[in-house]
């Protein structure tokens, strides 16, 4: 117990340290005038800032010097100050009206700011036949125009579908040993209870429909998350799950809170397990998002769910889990640079079930990072990314499970680590390869489990 507290404390400390460091770093190296996370390495930003100051002074002396202007614009774009790059290139466009490559660069800069109408004006100017845009410029412009067409609709539908296969060394979550202790009595579990490796095929979908409301930046958002898996042997684990969220999302800038939103939503969901209805849930949630500059984003989610379980031949006592669930989740994401970001989260969850031993309080924290790097394969030009993530959860059950230990309630410590390589393919498709390890340690022998899994999947974003 003591060691678990140390683990938990260390992780909370790490999250707090990360947040503090991130805020300090944001002040130290993020220029006030950056609009988006910089593309330059964090170590180069100070040097770039000094150089830009020199170039600005030189531009004031000689505004028509193209070398100075383009260097200033490109360094501004690298530093994330897209406004600086725009004002410089708009000057170049006054020098050379109708130059398609300038229209392209300006269009992309406005696109990156989310100013789609202005970006579209530049892209359309680039395609003006009178300006004779080179083919590569036309191709890029057309791709951006297509993207804008989707992004600027008042009613937007987007999402992703994915499918793949996963191998697990302990698909059924079986205990590490068949010799367990039940109320001080040694008990030999049947062989069917042993941890069993298995392979599943899965499919998942994430769909979002968004409609602009009358007020500035307000939206009504409907989200559908779904997941299904079929196991080769452990068919009782075949799972189908869906959850629908729906509700308004308000722009908090109306209260002079920059880069912030509040979403209020209803929740309805269901789970099928082993071909039988297993869980139906309904509830509501609140989600607050806040950007502290272009690099640090914080999120706070609170959700309440009523949960109704259904008994089945495989799950004769599922209704003991009937109850409610309240979850609080805090997240932070910091873009160190365009190629490296870190994230952290802390969660607290209260489950109330009819059976006291199934009621619990769960606390946890996670920490991870994503590195984006150039594709090693010339055939796949888009950059790859690797995400490494680790987490810890502690579950304190309310009451003892009388058949396992009448005197002591269960306390579980779960450790997870996961690495995912994401390889973009073509036309919105990407491939994911994930390795993960899960270790649960409990004072109840029957819940001591480990599982190593490998997953290969494909995702299409639209």
């Amino acid at each position: 117990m003591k060691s678990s507290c140390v683990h938990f404390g260390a992780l909370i400390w790490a999250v707090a340290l990360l947040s503090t460091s991130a805020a300090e770093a944001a002040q130290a190296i993020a220029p006030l005038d950056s609009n988006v996370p910089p593309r330059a390495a964090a170590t180069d930003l100070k040097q770039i800032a000094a150089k830009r100051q020199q170039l600005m002074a030189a531009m004031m002396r000689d505004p028509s010097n193209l070398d100075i202007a383009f260097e200033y614009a490109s360094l501004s774009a690298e530093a994330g100050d897209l406004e600086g790059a725009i004002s410089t290139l708009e000057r170049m466009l006054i020098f050379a009206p109708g130059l398609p490559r300038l229209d392209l660069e300006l269009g992309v800069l406005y696109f990156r700011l989310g100013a789609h109408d202005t970006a579209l004006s530049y892209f359309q100017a680039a395609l003006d036949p009178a300006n004779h845009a080179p083919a590569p410029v036309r191709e890029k412009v057309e791709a951006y125009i297509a993207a804008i067409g989707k992004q600027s609709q008042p009613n937007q539908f987007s999402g992703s579908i994915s499918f793949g296969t996963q191998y697990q060394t302990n698909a059924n979550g079986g205990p590490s040993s068949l010799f367990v202790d039940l109320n001080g009595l040694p008990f030999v579990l049947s062989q069917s209870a042993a941890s069993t490796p298995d392979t599943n095929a899965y499919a998942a979908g994430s769909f979002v429909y968004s409609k602009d409301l009358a007020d500035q930046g307000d939206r009504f958002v409907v989200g559908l998350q779904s997941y299904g898996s079929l196991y080769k042997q452990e068919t009782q684990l075949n799972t189908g799950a869906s959850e629908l969220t729906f509700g308004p999302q308000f722009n908090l800038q109306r209260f002079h809170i920059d880069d912030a939103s509040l979403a209020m939503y209803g929740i309805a969901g269901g789970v099928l397990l082993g071909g039988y209805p297993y869980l139906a849930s309904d509830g509501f949630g609140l989600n607050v998002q806040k950007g502290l500059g272009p690099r640090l984003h914080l999120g706070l989610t609170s959700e309440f769910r009523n949960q109704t379980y259904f008994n089945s031949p495989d799950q004769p006592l599922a209704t003991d889990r009937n109850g409610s669930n309240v979850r609080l989740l805090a997240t932070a994401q910091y873009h160190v640079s365009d190629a490296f970001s870190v994230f952290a989260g802390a969660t607290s969850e209260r489950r109330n079930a009819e059976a006291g031993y199934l009621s619990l309080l769960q606390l946890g924290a996670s920490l991870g990072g994503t590195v984006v790097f150039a594709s090693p394969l010339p055939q796949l030009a888009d950059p790859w990314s690797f995400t490494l993530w680790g987490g810890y959860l502690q579950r304190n059950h309310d009451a003892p499970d009388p058949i396992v230990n009448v005197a002591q309630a269960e306390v579980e410590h779960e450790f997870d680590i996961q690495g995912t390589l994401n390889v973009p393919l073509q036309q919105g498709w990407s491939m994911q390869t994930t390795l993960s390890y899960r270790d649960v340690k409990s004072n109840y022998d029957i819940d001591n489990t480990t599982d190593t899994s490998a997953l290969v999947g494909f995702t299409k974003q639209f």
Partner: protein
Amino acid sequence: MLHLRLALLSTVFLLPMAAAPALAAKAGVTAAVNQSAQGTPPGGGIRTIVLGADVLQDEKIDTTGKGLVQILLADGTTFTVGPNSSLTIDHFVYDPNAGTAQVTASLAKGVFRFIGGRTSKTPNGVTLNTPVGTVGIRGAVVDINLVPTAEGRRAQIDLLFGQEVTLNRQRIYQAGYSIIVGADGRLRIVKTPPGSGDLIQLILAGHSHQTGGSNHIPDDKIVASSGMPPTNSEYPVTDNLPPPLLPLPTTDFGDTITTVTADANDLTTNGEVTPPPPPPPPPPPVDTRISGTFQGFSAGLGSGYVETCGMTPFSTILTNIDPNDVTVDFSPSTDSVGGTFALTGGYLLQDISVGFGDGSSGGSSSFPSNDAFTATGTGSAATATLQYTTGPGSGGNGTTFASHGSDTLASCTCDFLQWGYWATDFDAEGEGNNGTGHVSAVGTWVTGDITSPEDFAAYSEAQANYTATYTGNAVGYAQEPDEIGTHRATGDMSMTWDFGSRNGFVDITNFDGSHEFSTSVSSSTPNGQFSTGEGSGSMNVNGAFVNNGSDKAAGVIGNFSAYEEGGYQATGIIAGQRTSLDLTSPP
């Protein structure tokens, strides 16, 4: 020659400006100029604005119908001034060390684009005075169109990107919205009208045959070879999407699936091997605790292993047929309970016998009330027959025997019965070469005042033309095919008995949710006991009639065991009370 003339011309026009406003502070420079544009410095005469000229504070800049000027301030702020426009930089201060800047400008007429440097990142850093009111800008790119339209619009202010723009008391805080000033001076906030952005873009982009006053004209090659594309347009479209400032809440399916998996493999159950002891009741004025020795039935699920040349696990149902094999003695005078169970199993574990309570069992007991009593017995008070040979038990945790505690029989008050739970765990030693083993079992028990053969015969004779219905419950343990361990389960029980033919039916419904079992039962002799006839149903039942005081055969008790195709098995006790006595046939 042409250059020389231009240079001379510029010198001529600049001289008065340079002389007159010698004390005026510099605000910025003209970074691009399409002619014609004129400046009127404070206290000075009109001058033609050229590229690279200083722009002074309080200097009024006017453009003609073809004029276009970009003014660059030292902090990076730019004003692009369209044709037929008029702008004055009233005040500009910049502190590079603090990173703050402030600008106040007057926009009298025309079309403008404002791109903020440090000014717009400084609180209250930008104040633009216009004929329709004062505009404030924070962290934004803004178009301002002060050209009245035929439709009656006096002005339009568009937020292209950024935090906010205010005009008088109206405020835009979402890119893509505009403030429109009507002919009556009223302000409206609307989504930026389609096409208005294109129009301003056209106005501010310059025109062919104009070069912004520069002799250095960028071309396609210069742009392509500059450092700009690699940091901007050469990235894939998806990497250039703006960061999701307002992301959606997401479902954590990982947790759901993990929970589902854990649920699917949960060992237990709501079984209660040992119900938690309730608090002791206050001493009653009269001791109502039951007293005496009672017989009955028990059933349980046993598991363990036999070790000979290897470890062979087993799992079996344990029951008794003769009520004398389950005996419990209640002794209020000594506050004790005790007894013995002798139960029959299957192939590897053929039978067990356990003892509990004070005395020879080596255990102890407590008997505070009829609903709360417990007893224990040591492993050495047990025996087991493993693979045909009987050996003594030893070690282990021994036997725990307990009342039903706060659990009740939903369909039977049955105060004349006693029932509860038990568990045992001990090592057993087979004789000869049969090695050793380990036995663990959990189960339920029920006892009562068994109707004697004589009383039952008399009662049966008296009720020979009647059929009785007994209603109660079944309580026991069940095991799913893939379940680890067992789980407690309950159901409804109904039994009919024809006293004339000594035949009846037992039905268990809603057991463990939705399981149903039934069997016919009969009694070969009128001794008050009954059991399943061969091949007559989906379960086996052994039972006996019990008295409720002087009311003979007022209840039934027994045990049952059932198997289903697919591997589901269940066993437990049944208990019921007589609820009706109906005429079977005319006397």
